């Protein structure tokens, strides 16, 4: 309760201040700022979205990596698409969303950021019929065309702020992993 109220206070304050960037200021305050709702989320020291080094230091981003602050997904892909190490499956979905300009409040607009997002929110961008086709060759079964039908809760597999998991595998033993693909929208 405390957290909810405080975060709402900061959200309004931040919106009031009206700072926006690639990653908006309220976003940063809520997710990476003074009152992180995700306890293990690193705190950003400066409010610029593509600033990988600010959190990840040299452990993830090599020291000689070009400065990333201000970069968006197309900038990452310009180098990472073919080259190793690829970014594919390395970034959590929260990051790929952010770098595509989808900020926290785009999904968490009405509710406290700690709450779960309804699949309807995902489906405003990701259409079930497209996904069904995208994964039709996945073996041994197309995860988007299962006995549960095409409209399952996305978050059963695809976690945005945690490693994704293979929901099928609570009963099956399917070899495929849930990708965190680098997609430009």
């Amino acid at each position, binding site marked *: 309760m405390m957290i909810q109220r405080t975060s709402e206070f900061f959200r309004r304050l931040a919106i009031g201040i009206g700072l926006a960037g690639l990653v908006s200021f309220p976003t940063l305050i809520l997710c990476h700022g003074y009152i992180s709702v995700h306890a293990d989320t690193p705190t950003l020291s400066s409010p610029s979205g593509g600033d990988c080094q600010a959190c990840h230091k040299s452990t993830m981003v090599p020291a000689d990596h070009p400065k990333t602050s201000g970069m968006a997904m197309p900038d990452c892909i310009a180098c990472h698409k073919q080259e190793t190490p690829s970014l594919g499956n390395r970034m959590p979905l929260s990051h790929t969303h952010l770098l595509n300009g989808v900020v926290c409040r785009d999904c968490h607009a009405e509710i406290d950021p700690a709450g779960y997002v309804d699949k309807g929110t995902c489906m405003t961008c990701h259409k079930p019929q497209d996904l069904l086709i995208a994964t039709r060759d996945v073996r*041994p079964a197309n995860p988007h065309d299962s*006995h549960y039908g095409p409209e399952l809760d996305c978050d059963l597999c695809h976690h945005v702020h945690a490693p994704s998991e293979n929901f099928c595998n609570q009963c099956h033993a399917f070899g495929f992993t849930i990708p965190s693909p680098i997609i430009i929208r």
Partner: protein
Amino acid sequence: MTDESGHGKGALTRRGFLKTTGGAALAGVAAGGLFNVPQKAFGADMPNNWDEQVDVVVVGSGFAGLAAAIEAKQAGASVLVLEKMRVPGGNSIINGGVFAVAGSAKQEAEGIKDSPELLLADMLKAGLNLNHVQLAKLVAEKSREAVEWTQSLGVEYREKVVHLGGHSVPRSWSTHNSSGSAIVQKQIEKTKQLGIEIRLQSFLTAIIQDASGRVVGVKVREKYRFPAQDSGTVKHIKANKALVLAAGGFSADMYFRTLQDPTLTEKVDTTNQPGATAEVLLEALRIGSTPVQISWIQLGPWTSPDEKGMGVGYVFNAMAGFVEGVMVDPTTGKRFINELADRKIRSDAIFRTGHPSVTIADSRGVKGVHNLERSLEVGVVKKFDTIESLAAEYKIPPVALQETINLWNGFVEQRKDEQFDRYMQKDQQTIAVGPFYACRCWPKVHHTMGGVQINDKAQVIGLNRKPVPGLYAAGEVTGGVHGAVRLGSCAVTDCIVFGRIAGQHAAKA
């Protein structure tokens, strides 16, 4: 059941109430007579305010719950379906889609003679006559009506009936995709048309009774995230007419199932969805419903140890190995049981050998295995050019295996299994034309026959031998229909028949 109010420690029946709060309550009786007993003696859980109300609350979104919801709505009641999981359909939506129907046009077309009486006789034989005959009879008699009802919802079935173990004739219908999801998806479609809400992540934690003992509502946790007991928020929903329990069986409830059968430890896998747990059954018992045959727990003989859960290989075993081929003990290369005996007889026989058995069929025998390619891909079914290479893979003595196959082929030619008297299919063929296919079998916990007692109106019967007012139940959460052993494909029939009955009566309660 445990929840934050602590009544789970045993307070709700009148007797329970007096026991736990006996001091205060008896003091009340002593000082001011019976009328001073606090109002909440029965309805200790009665909320001050209901968050919501509806005519009929259904718990569980499988075959039984959805059938009840559809019928209740069509009878004029407002209906809400509660489902604790994040997906609908329970075990029904992962089910194999075989549906026992006695005396159908499909059978007539194949010249198979059948009747509800024959199905009932099969159910009683497998059930060791522990079945509550009146209930089993209803299932047999209404089996045809039940499948036709699903057809009216748009469910499509394959042309041929299949022969499952323990049935004296082939009679079971297969959905077009060999999955119960074909039925559940159409049921869900119907609920949408009728404007019935299926509320996922809504976990029933208590059944609420009024002072007279009538069931009047439920306590739930909404936005619940299985299996976190304390997740979500508490809400009270009033059921103006009735509550229908359709919460399924408890094969995945490690604590409760090993309590009933201590041999079923975590070493034995289950075919069930992880939410197949006992809390609704226990809650029904807590308010005084009568338990029936809770410790009869069935293992499926056709599952494979080479994959998780039900997996895919069971189709080969059930449709080919047991019907068109043979099952052997790999250490001897010999058959050891009638491959079409009921599930308990087969599972017990496999367990007795102490290791997985091997089923074998030839290229003609696998015609009905719709998922053969996938089973080969997953590696649970294997393909061999010769019987010798098959024997080598499973370390079966090759000469003994060939002898077993020759013996069986002789039985097929004379149309009589002299060893175990297995039913000969109309077009039974020998095991002779390669490639040959094989799969290992090791039983897994599959079905819980026991549950709450119901009558022919699907009313739950209390320990006072009378219906618990306002409480109905259908499907695997009930006991009695199947007795000791459920026959394959009879669960769908049971769930649809009694789900519909429960809904019809609940709407008028």
